[in-house]
């Protein structure tokens, strides 16, 4: 119920935004992406586009040294191994995850999220895993951490190096609207601290918030799932969205809710062409 209200609110917000924002009214997604990339380029002239796949480590050399040392033999190796075992294990009915995906589910993570014209919704890799389970009479997996993150780790691993492939189908107005809603979410201020995603990850990218450097939003979708050093477990992108909203004391949309899928769609579109490098470790 609240989700639907939020979606309606953002639709209204998007419409108003598009009507009243003077400079960027009716910019196409391609124009958005170009403007945002140009903004980051002048902020970080030393970076190539692919560097953004490293996230904050592209702009924080101290943290990068520590990260690389840990990546030599990363702690997510166990989750990854477990994910491969779970991915290959047949379901009770004899079918398996490989039957739900193209190319047996190998090297396909770059094609998610995408707009499904029939279902009229954004399909993320996590939701596709649960859709697969549903068809095969299995209970859905929780979306934040745990088993789903091990499966995502394995699928990300087989997709390493693949270039993110997120496009908005030209003939689909609902797909464009979903993108616009994701974009509105990104720019919308929220919570007690009245921050938007853009406040930290666009306007203040590269600056310090307390003792940390803020990562640019460009490249945010390349390295998931991530083993978090501070929680010492694998987590998903949507879990990270939730934690971030919690930290700025805003309402927390659930993982894989429409709002967060739209946000992921928007961010993934910005990241189109960047190489995938998950699973990864982060602080």
């Amino acid at each position, binding site marked *: 119920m609240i989700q639907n209200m939020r979606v309606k609110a953002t639709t209204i917000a998007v419409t108003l935004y598009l009507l009243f924002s003077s400079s960027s009214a009716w910019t196409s997604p391609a124009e958005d992406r170009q403007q945002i990339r140009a903004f980051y380029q002048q902020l970080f002239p030393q970076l190539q586009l692919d560097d953004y796949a490293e996230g904050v480590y592209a702009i924080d050399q101290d943290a990068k040294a520590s990260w690389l040392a*840990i990546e*030599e*033999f*990363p*702690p997510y*190796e*166990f989750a990854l*191994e*477990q994910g491969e*075992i779970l991915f290959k294990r047949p379901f009770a009915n004899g079918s398996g995850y490989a039957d739900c995906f193209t190319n047996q589910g190998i090297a396909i993570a770059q094609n998610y999220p995408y707009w499904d014209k029939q279902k009229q919704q954004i399909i993320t890799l996590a939701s596709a895993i649960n859709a697969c389970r549903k068809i095969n009479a299995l209970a859905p997996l929780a979306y934040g951490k745990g088993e789903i993150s091990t499966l995502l780790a394995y699928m990300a691993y087989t997709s390493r190096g693949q270039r993110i492939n997120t496009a908005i189908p030209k003939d689909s107005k609902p797909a464009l609207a979903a993108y616009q809603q994701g974009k509105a979410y990104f720019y919308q201020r929220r919570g007690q601290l009245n921050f938007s995603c853009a406040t930290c990850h666009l306007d203040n990218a590269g600056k310090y918030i307390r003792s940390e450097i803020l990562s640019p939003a460009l490249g945010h979708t390349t390295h998931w799932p991530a083993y978090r050093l501070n929680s*010492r477990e694998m987590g998903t992108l949507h879990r990270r969205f939730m934690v971030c909203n919690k930290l700025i004391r805003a309402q927390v949309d659930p993982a894989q809710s429409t709002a967060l899928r739209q946000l992921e769609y928007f961010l993934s579109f910005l990241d189109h062409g960047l190489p995938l490098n998950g699973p990864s470790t982060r602080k």
Partner: protein
Amino acid sequence: MSTIKIRSKRLADYTLVRTLIAHPMETGKRKDDETGELVPAHFIQTLNFKHNDQLMSQCQMGFGVSKNPFFSFQIKSAQAGDIVSISWQDNLGYSDSAEHIIR
């Protein structure tokens, strides 16, 4: 699934051996997120690294070592086909060991 992963890289002047071990290395001071209770201390105390059954390094450690311990060593000279092994024992009496063949 073994708790021990071992990787080796044979280079001109030495052979690098790295190991990653699945172990919580609990200090006994951490509170469980859900129950609020203290998680009991549970950490590896001793670890042996062997090369062809010869003891190369004996390690004693406390809970100050990170969760999912990582260690790396360099053997001066090793041949393809040599066997390295890692074995550990913790404060609660659990133990595990694994072998790896150098290529």
